[in-house]
């Protein structure tokens, strides 16, 4: 009988990614509601020394698949190894992060396991012993509550980054380390990662950013984003953009927030010169605090904003940066 919660850890260059701690924390809460244990699976090469820092967020067991062929992510190798482990342990719930890697892995893994999969969820609960998930659809214009058919086991889902609260790490937590048993035949490894190109400016991805300063059509040109960069640098944030600013060629596609860009949920979202087209509002509606700076008092963005400043952004943003600096220094 299927039992327990299995969470899939994520590492890059042998560093454990923050999304791992978020899903292990959430996995702990779900396991407690079921009165069952949480098993976390970690894939990589020479990775065993990292198990403690994962388990302290709430794992009872950590299964380690340590193999040079698992050092870098490929869907072929990861799906094969994880599906073998899932079949051995038969968890009731299988939880991954909805990171770039996690979304890719979970999609193919759900097809391999032939189970239903709830992508990019913002909330989980247990009802009548089963996983119930809430996930935004239409980029957040609606929310779907989903669950699983009886034979669809494990109940599989991914969690949106930055949404699940992290447990206080317990460095004294007792847990068991298990070496994974798996067969990985070279003949199935068709996809290869041949190179990694690091972004020129080391910036936190919008999907994982704690604070975002975004600019729209009101920025008037690419050179003016400098004032947003300065504000973002000061508060440890990342610069985003509306579709209008991206389509005008002022910012790269990877900066776009909205229905055809990234869906984000930072703690603080500062929208500068963004009117708030429905596609944009959909992409940032789950931000915890929204600030809008726009000179048009009727701009729809003000309906979503917790704090609105009706004024010229070119007058407000520089003094805002100055005021924050003053506050941080005091």
């Amino acid at each position, binding site marked *: 009988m299927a039992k327990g919660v299995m969470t899939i850890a994520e590492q890059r260059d042998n560093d454990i990614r923050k999304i791992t701690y978020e899903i292990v924390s959430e996995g702990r809460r779900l396991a407690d509601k079921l009165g069952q244990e949480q098993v976390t699976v970690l894939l990589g090469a020479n990775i065993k020394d990292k198990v403690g820092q994962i388990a302290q967020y709430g794992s009872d067991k950590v299964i380690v698949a340590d193999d040079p062929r698992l050092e870098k992510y490929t*869907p072929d190798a990861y799906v094969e190894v994880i599906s073998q482990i899932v079949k051995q342990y038969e968890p009731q719930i299988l939880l991954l992060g909805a990171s770039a890697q996690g979304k890719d892995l979970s*999609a193919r893994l759900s097809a391999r396991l032939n189970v239903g999969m709830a992508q990019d969820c913002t909330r989980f609960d247990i009802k009548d012993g089963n996983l119930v998930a809430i996930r935004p659809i239409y980029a957040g214009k609606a*929310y779907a509550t989903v669950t699983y058919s009886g034979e669809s086991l494990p109940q599989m889902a991914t969690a949106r980054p930055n949404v699940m609260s992290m447990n206080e790490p317990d460095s004294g937590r007792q847990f068991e380390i298990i070496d994974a048993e798996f067969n990985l035949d070279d003949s199935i490894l068709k996809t290869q990662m041949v190179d990694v190109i690091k972004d020129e400016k080391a910036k936190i*991805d919008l999907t994982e950013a704690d604070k975002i300063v975004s600019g729209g059509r009101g920025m008037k040109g690419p050179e003016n984003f400098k004032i947003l960069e300065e504000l973002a640098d000061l508060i440890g944030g990342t610069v985003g953009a509306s579709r209008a600013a991206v389509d005008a060629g002022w910012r790269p596609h990877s900066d776009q927030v909205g229905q055809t860009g990234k869906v984000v949920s930072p703690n603080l979202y500062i929208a500068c010169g963004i009117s708030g087209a429905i596609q944009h509002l959909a992409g940032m509606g789950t931000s915890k605090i929204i600030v809008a700076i726009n000179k048009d008092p009727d701009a729809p963005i003000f309906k979503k904003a917790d704090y609105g400043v009706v004024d010229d952004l070119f007058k407000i943003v520089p003094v805002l940066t100055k005021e924050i600096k003053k506050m941080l220094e005091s």
Partner: protein
Amino acid sequence: MNIIVFLKQVPDTETQIRITEDKSSIVKDDIKWIINPYDEFAIEEALRIKEKFGGEVTIVSAGPKRVVESIRTALAMGADKGILINDPALDDSDSLAYAKVLSQAVKDLSYDILFTGQRGIDDDNGIVGAAIAEFLGIPHLAVVTKVEISEDQKKVKVHRPVEGQTWVMEAPLPALITAQKGLNEPRYASLPGIMKAKKKPLEEKTLQDLGLDASEFGKDKRKLKVVELNPPPERKPGKIIDGETPEEKAEKLVKLLHEEAKVI
């Protein structure tokens, strides 16, 4: 090279989503239907590869009769033929069911490379592409912004942006690729293209035509069950910061962000 592109028809991004009274679905009257924006990048990339290497581009979709219009648009852009799986038994199926149908529809065709969008902007799942590849037993490369086919046409190399870096990944053909914004700028259909598209073959098939059992599909056979749909949670009304000067407004805002919202 023979190329297959899987297309989905979705509500236009401008659509205000309304939910039916029984909360089971969105209200589908008055929706303007478009080709999923990510699928447009997929179509464009397929056409560019065809222009370089020769071959045929086949558009494959599943859905009701209205999807014919989207397939015709893709044919007007330059694709060669279309297949629509139109069967009411398929309505409200989940991603895996659609992936099974779409893979079944192409498994006996000759293909070197398959494309689709990285996700549908309606359900936001991003599952169908990878699942089709799984059911066909071929590699997939997801969320791609650059595609390079090797000279011998046996391999494909792609760029796949992830958080803070870009992965350069390679796979042997045939492979399935899902397109991300930034891959290309999709062309518009030309007037002669639109005229020609009317005469291009577009075949409609049922589940039975594909050798599938219709009773295995539909809402009741979903593995992922939709309990209900709801509008997004209301945000509490915000405050407009007043003040005589930008300095005064900025100062008040910083105070609120620090003391009330506690985010800086």
